[in-house]
């Protein structure tokens, strides 16, 4: 079976500057793949490239079909949901409105109420805050909101951009636990980019290491986690 998402010779540029070089990676159907890298390595750009938010060259396939060059709005309709860097909260809308927006591009509108209930089960704190403005949530709550908003699309692929950034370890653990549950229960495939390598490696089944826009290592997470240079540079032991 072909992978759900596959990038071949992927390049991306901002203006004249090329920031991704000849990237190759894939996400298996039902799998969790992580791309690790330091600040500025190109993780966010990789996710933006997948959703058509930057100019790219090379091939991106989703479910076997070419998707490079497609508009972001159309990719959402194929089932690619993105919890972006900075969380992308609609700060002036209520939590519930934020979530309703997540379902905007859904084909089946009928079961949105049910899905909202299920989402609230995953993220009880959002239920408490559903009438509050998005901008009034804490960082961790906004991260949950971003993931919840992505999930209500019923995506096939979930793109997560550093969900651990700036959050307390306990909150991070909670969020990762939920991502794992969602992956198990709903079969959503996940592409996670992270600096927090130890958490990401524990969650993912496959890992890539990104340095200045190039993949410098890849393999099953357990293998990558054992590599000496990775341990020294990213895991700190």
């Amino acid at each position, binding site marked *: 079976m072909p992978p759900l998402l596959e990038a071949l010779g992927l390049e991306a540029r*901002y*203006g*004249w*500057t090329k920031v991704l070089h000849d990237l190759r990676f894939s996400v298996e159907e039902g799998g969790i793949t992580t791309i690790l890298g330091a600040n500025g390595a190109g993780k966010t750009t990789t996710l*933006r490239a997948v959703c*058509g*938010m*930057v*100019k790219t060259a090379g091939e991106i396939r989703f479910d076997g079909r070419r998707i490079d060059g497609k*508009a*972001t*709005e159309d990719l959402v309709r194929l089932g690619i949901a993105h919890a972006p860097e900075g969380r992308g909260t609609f700060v002036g809308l209520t939590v519930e409105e934020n979530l309703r927006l997540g379902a905007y591009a859904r084909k089946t509108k009928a079961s949105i109420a049910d899905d909202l209930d299920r989402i609230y089960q995953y993220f009880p704190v959002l239920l408490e805050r559903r009438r509050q403005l998005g901008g009034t949530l804490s960082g961790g709550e906004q991260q949950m909101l971003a993931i919840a908003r992505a999930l209500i699309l019923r995506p096939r692929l979930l793109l997560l951009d550093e969900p651990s950034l700036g959050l307390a370890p306990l909150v991070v653990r909670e969020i990762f636990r939920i991502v794992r549950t969602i992956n198990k229960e709903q079969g959503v495939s996940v592409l996670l980019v992270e600096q927090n390598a130890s958490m990401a490696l524990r969650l993912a089944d496959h890992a890539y290491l990104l340095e200045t826009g190039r993949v410098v290592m890849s393999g099953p997470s357990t293998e990558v986690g054992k590599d000496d240079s990775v341990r020294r540079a990213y895991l700190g032991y």
Partner: protein
Amino acid sequence: MNSEISETVEAASAGEVAARVSAPPRVTPRAWEVAGLLALIAGACLLPFELSGFRLFQFTQVFVYAIALLGLNILTGYNGQISLGHGAFYGIGAYTAAIMIDRWGVPYGWTVPVAGVLCLVVGFLFGLPALRLEGLYLALATFALALSVPQILKHFDGWTGGSQGIVLSRPAAPLGLPLTADQWLYFLSLGVLLVLFMLGWNLLRGRTGRALVAIRDNPIAAEAMGVNAALYKSLAFGVSAAYTGVAGALSALAIAFVAPDTFNVFLSITFLVGIVIGGLASISGPIFGALFIQFVPNYAQDISKAAPWAIYGIFLIVFMYVMPYGVSGFLRLAWRRLTRATAGTRPK
């Protein structure tokens, strides 16, 4: 469709867009600007001996507009404060000249600097409360100023002659120079324009210019760096008003007539059009802008008698499509393309 992010990013890295609100901080003129300016001055000195009286008058008007536009550009282009009311300062300048000459018999030569100083003070004072007003609110306040000026002028009809206005006689050339009144006014305006441009250029390329641009682009950081934003903003207002007031005084001399309804809101809007068409925050922009606001309405009239302003509107829109950064922004880009192409350093 491309996302907004990728587009803005691309433009920014190409150096075209620093901020969406205004053109990039370009204070020192480019080589082409200097060369073009010199050629223009040389040509400008020959013009009066080639053109008929009315044509010449139109170019005198171009210089006068250019002064006003430079003034507005200091405020809006360099300092980022949008004024929809500079017609008011133009009017104050014009009436200062007219009243001094007609009512008090002051020699006309004095009226221009006095108009400048008066507008400097009025502008500075107006700039003080305006400090509290951001963006649109400032636009509204200045708009109100523009609206009220014709009414105020009519109100004090003892001085201003009310709706009738004041008729002046055109000054003759001094020192027995063999020039017609048209030619003399032309050279006078050109001279004032050159002096004010040199002053403006000196002001803008130095510390003051950098401070103004810094306040426009990043007011909080500018304050943190020790720039007294309040002072600079009021000063920008004052200087800008002074330039426009000088232009107004010159226009009163050139037209030899002032009337309240000339200085209406549309004049202010015309000035705004002029600086955007010419190019914000550029030294040469006011010249291009002045040429546009002086001549394009006439051409529009030639094209269609029935709906000249529709033609003018189409010109405006097409101009903005082709040159979103104004004429000077367009030339700057063309110049860069040219040098890059000849140097062969275009990055892959």
